[in-house]
């Protein structure tokens, strides 16, 4: 396969230093290939969302986060750079786990980023952009005659596709998706999955999922994250048929119980940390 790397993390560590210290990521180094759909899997609380958000510095909205290491988008550093963060985030889009419409109309939801970046010359061009991105996420037919109604009036499945359209409309290189189907009914989930598969022709997609079936169905590469560390990173075939690590094998076989290392001084006391 002739894939080149779109996004790389180098020894990325993230620690939450709130009431109790949580080392959410412990030196993660991964290469995410361009125009592939990479799935990050792992049990709850193992740092998947943290990893995803640290790729475009979204975790910085939380107080008390410490980070070390770096992320590279192509050959550009994400952390050691003078480039303004909004410009970086425009190139690395993010779709949250909960389908979230902005308090704007359907049209304005899609046009939101485009308008902020001023990347259009006329109303007609903007209209066309909005239509094309709604087409791209297979939502146009369902909403074309009610573009002015609030985005939040759509069903959750539709809102999730609206979120995809909003993120895609600013033409990112990389799209980060955090368990984007977990809040959806099976039918909506399937349609979002199909959309993601279509999209990887044009974008690099990094998706968190807790469903191994989903990873198996639509991913090209799989990253297995466990207690803040990368256990295995492989293409989907090898990962599921022929995993390198014993731990991966156990996880695939359904052993998703998290075993904390007793010597680890920061190990949380409860068996499975609550999903954030």
């Amino acid at each position, binding site marked *: 396969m002739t894939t080149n790397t779109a996004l790389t993390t180098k020894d990325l560590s993230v620690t939450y230093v709130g009431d109790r210290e949580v080392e959410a990521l412990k030196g993660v180094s991964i290469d995410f290939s361009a125009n592939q759909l990479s799935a990050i899997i792992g049990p709850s609380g193992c740092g998947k969302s943290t990893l995803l958000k640290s790729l475009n510095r979204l975790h910085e*909205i939380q107080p008390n986060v410490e980070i070390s290491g770096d992320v590279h988008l192509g050959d550009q550093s994400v952390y050691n750079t003078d480039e303004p963060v909004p410009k970086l985030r425009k190139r690395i889009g993010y779709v*949250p786990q909960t389908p979230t419409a902005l*308090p704007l109309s359907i049209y304005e939801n899609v046009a939101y980023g485009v308008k902020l970046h001023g990347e259009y010359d006329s109303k007609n061009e903007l209209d066309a952009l909005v239509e094309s991105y709604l087409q791209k996420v297979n939502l146009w037919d369902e909403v074309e005659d009610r573009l002015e109604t609030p985005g939040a009036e759509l069903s959750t499945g539709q809102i999730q596709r609206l979120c995809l359209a909003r*993120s895609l409309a600013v033409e990112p290189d990389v799209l980060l998706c955090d368990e984007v189907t977990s809040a959806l009914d099976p039918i909506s989930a399937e349609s979002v999955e199909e959309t993601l598969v279509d999209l990887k022709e044009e974008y690099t997609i990094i998706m968190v999922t807790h469903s191994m079936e989903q990873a198996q169905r639509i991913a090209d590469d799989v990253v297995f994250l466990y207690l803040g560390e990368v256990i295995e990173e492989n293409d989907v075939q090898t990962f599921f048929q022929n995993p390198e690590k014993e731990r991966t094998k156990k996880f695939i076989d359904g052993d998703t119980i998290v075993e904390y290392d007793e010597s680890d001084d920061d190990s949380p006391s409860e068996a499975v940390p609550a999903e954030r």
Partner: protein
Amino acid sequence: MGGSTDSGSQNRLGRRLLTERVSGYWLQGAGYFAIVLFALIVLALLYQSLPLLSEYSLVQMLTSSNWDPAQNQFGFLPAIVGTVYVTALTMIMGTPIAILAAIYIAEYAEGRTKTLVSSFIDVLAAIPSVIFGLVALIVVVPFVGDYLAPAVGSSATGLGIFTVSLVMAIVVTPFMISLSVESLEALPDELRESSLGVGATKWETIRIVLLRAAGPGIFSAVLLGFGRVFGATIVPAMLIGGQTHLPSSPFATGQTLPTLIVNDFGELMSLPLTQSALIFVGLMLIVVVWLFNFSAMILRQRLQQRWQF
């Protein structure tokens, strides 16, 4: 054996259902009680206002600026203008500050600063307003009378509309800040992430997304502030100068509807028409507040519908 447990559980279910029904009535009763109480207050005020209303024309009283109960002159215009003046000035000064401060506390302040600032705001919100009135008499009144009014070419004692508005702004702003902070902090982080995630700046996120999403809550906060200013009694009574004339400038003395009541009710209640007139002022206050809350409720629903997320 089996039969007795059966009837035991029957009994038990019967009791539970009875409790259910009784508590239902209770809650319903409490709800209706509020409505009945409101209606009773309005009726009582209305009944006591009748002597005045049968004697003079309503329109004439509302548009006359001659208030002299001893001479049976009941012009409400000065107090109405004073109330509108104070409320408008206070809200113009207080609202932008409240919203900006709330944004700072909810979105920018972190850690100890945040704790410190918000705890002081809560303390300010809890101070009885009579204390603000006292401090204002010592500090604000001389300041306005000796410096501010002369500086804008007006002569004043320092007591008057502007002083009241300034102090009322200080009284209600912490209140509005607290409530606005709550609505901003209740917003899900996904809204922030969604907006920042397409490359919006923090300020764009606040202005376009968060202020809309929290809009209905902030709107309610401002309305509660408005209600407090509109019905404020002690601070205006201490600082407005208590003269019933149409205020000629923001620094002029004046009267508001509530101060009209407190200033005149003692001595003049012995004159039956005066008593009726003051009660009518109370009726106006309650009707305006009710109309206002009612339209605010409808507007809030509209906003909520429009800015849902």
